[in-house]
């Protein structure tokens, strides 16, 4: 009797042990891989932030539809940082200590990213950067990987001056917003201009609260530069384009634009319409034949439908493509290494080419692109009130670099005729 009871007890214990033994890995398998980040969903950067979030969500849906990563679903944990660097350190601490995320994606843009760099370096974490410009230049964290197409401060501007060289220019004017990004850009641009032997005839930093640019544009006209390099934020970019249209920048100017944020955003492009003709500005992707990467067209078609519903940029050329690429890079690295260990993933990202919808990406030691790809586009033949025209080639002609060039740069005055 006693023997029978013991046997039964062992049987029950054995079944329980097997059940627990099996259920633990099952429970683990069902726990999602948490990827945490903050995004500018309100505040000055929200235009880009909301669009970027749609792209990241699309990647999560796509990867989960394929069965997730390492047999686990992927979950995206997002907080609104209100475009403020004051909020990002707190949010990322919460993501790490409360939400216990497995992987991190950086906040959108330079200033909110700069605020969390000491935290990620101190804790030795992998950070997939999201359009931070020079965010890692001083910290030198070896597990930072930026999705942006640039590398050092000069890389953003060099193709603008490459286009300027074709127009045989001698003098330059600089106009920059009194903000982190614009100032970092100005440093690189001035170094390139000095190397080219260009004489600076106007160099001003304007306050970010400037309402009307008529006075500034008039002062630039008086300086008679050949090239005007502008580093501005969206509202200012609109004001500057309008003022140039109204006041005129002078016949001496052969090339104008360069580092203007906002001229890549669909609502701004649609509203400015023909006023954009002739402007040359940075971009990272435009639908020219030279940039037909695998998967990009299909993504943009899917994205556009979602963006219209969410009332954000329906084109998606600027940020969404590159946010989807962040997801693809995580997917490639985790799948190849079969690991979520940050050091293992960072090693893989350093050593391998990442295959994304924005083309192949190889990283340098500092986590920026080994080869920068900031294209300069010139607006040509743009009509008023037509957003769909920008989906066609020929409206944003790539004038530099040579590798992606789809047309020669045309002097400002001629391009406006």
């Amino acid at each position, binding site marked *: 009797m006693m023997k029978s009871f013991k046997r039964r007890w062992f049987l029950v214990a054995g079944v329980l042990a097997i059940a627990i033994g099996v259920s633990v890995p099952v429970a683990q398998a069902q726990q999602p891989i948490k990827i945490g980040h903050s995004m500018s*969903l*309100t*505040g*000055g950067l*929200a*235009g880009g*932030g*909301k669009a970027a979030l749609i792209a990241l969500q699309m990647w999560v849906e796509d990867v989960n539809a394929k069965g997730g990563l390492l047999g686990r679903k992927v979950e995206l944990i997002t907080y609104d940082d209100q475009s403020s660097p004051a909020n990002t350190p707190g949010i990322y601490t919460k993501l790490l200590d409360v939400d216990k995320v497995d992987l991190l994606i950086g906040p959108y843009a330079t200033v909110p990213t700069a605020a969390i760099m000491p935290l990620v370096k101190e804790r030795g974490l992998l950070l997939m950067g999201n359009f931070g410009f020079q965010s890692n230049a001083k910290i030198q964290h070896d597990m930072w990987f930026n999705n942006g197409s640039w590398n050092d401060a000069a890389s953003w501007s060099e193709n603008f001056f490459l286009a300027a060289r074709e127009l045989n220019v001698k003098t330059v004017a600089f106009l920059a917003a*009194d903000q982190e990004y614009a100032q970092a850009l100005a440093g690189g641009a001035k170094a390139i201009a000095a190397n080219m032997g260009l004489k600076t005839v106007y160099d*001003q*930093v*304007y*306050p970010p*609260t*400037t*309402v*009307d640019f*008529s*006075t*500034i544009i*008039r*002062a630039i006209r*008086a*300086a008679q530069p050949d090239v005007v390099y502008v580093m501005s934020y*969206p*509202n200012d970019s*609109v*004001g500057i384009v*309008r*003022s140039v*249209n*109204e*006041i*005129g920048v002078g016949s001496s100017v052969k090339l104008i634009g360069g580092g203007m944020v*906002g001229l890549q*955003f*669909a*609502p*701004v492009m649609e*509203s*400015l319409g023909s*006023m954009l003709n002739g402007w040359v500005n940075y971009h990272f992707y435009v639908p020219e034949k030279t940039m037909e990467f695998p998967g990009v067209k299909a993504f943009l078609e899917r994205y556009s439908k979602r963006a219209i519903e*969410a*009332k*954000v*940029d329906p084109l998606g050329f600027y940020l969404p493509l590159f946010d989807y690429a962040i997801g693809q890079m995580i997917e490639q690295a985790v799948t190849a290494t079969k690991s979520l260990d940050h050091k293992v993933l960072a090693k893989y990202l350093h050593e391998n080419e990442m295959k994304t919808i924005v083309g192949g990406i190889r990283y340098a030691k500092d986590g920026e692109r080994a080869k920068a790809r900031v294209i300069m586009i010139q607006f040509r033949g743009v009509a*008023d*009130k037509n957003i769909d025209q920008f989906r066609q080639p020929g409206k944003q002609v790539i004038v530099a670099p040579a590798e992606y060039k789809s047309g020669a740069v045309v002097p400002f005055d001629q391009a406006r005729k």
Partner: protein
Amino acid sequence: MIFSFQLLFEAIVFGILLGCFYAAVSIGLSVAFGLLDVPHVAHPAVLIFAAYCAYLLGSYGWDPILAGLALMPLFFLFGVVMYRFYYETFEKRGTEAAVRGLAFFFGIAFIIEVGLILAFGVDQRMVEADYIGKSLTFGEMRVPLRMLLAFGVALALTAALTLYLSKTFTGRAIKAVAQDEPALRLMGANPVRIKQWAFGIATAVTALAGALLIVVGPVEPMLDRVYIGRTFCVVVLAGLGSMTGTLAAGLILGISESIVLMHFGASWAPAVAYALLLVVLGIRPQGLFGR
């Protein structure tokens, strides 16, 4: 930095136009805060709200300035309701409660911001009109039509409000309520109804100014934060409650900003404007035209 008298002259002209725009966006606050002593920190948010309403009507083919004029009666009602709520909840309960009303107006501003984000998204919005992006040429000088429009609207608003406040019974009652509320009550007038009416007028005027704002430049839901300092600066510099003073203060800020932008380095422009405010308040604490 290049200097010529032609450039200086143009800087002054641009400054006048810019100053008139500053006056136009501040004049509603001059009535609400300057005359009625209501801590209306939601004024810039109402301004942006009006700009979005003009944008919405613009999408149906309305001219933005006509849209602003059409919005004025609706904004008048909005102002009346807003003041009544503020009065019943805060002002009626005494001075301390009125100060707490500051939180109420901050709340209104946040609600407007969030409402605009939900309704329109976070992207910049602009309007299109024949006078945007074009200019009038006078010799070497080209003057943007949209800024000329701001000039005209500011002058018209200042003239209309000055005449209304000095020539009509209700206007004089509004001025009286600002100066001596108990005396007005003893004369048989109801100060609350007068203030309600005046706040309605201030909000209606802001509707037109908001339409002007979207004509001058693009708007986004949180643009009010840029204008909060500037509009209060104009009103305080003017001397609380002075309409012509508001125009003069706007002009002073606009011209000084424009000259600094053209000749002394653009980054100094805001510092000069606020330094000017400090100097004036140091010499005349009641403002330029205050009593």
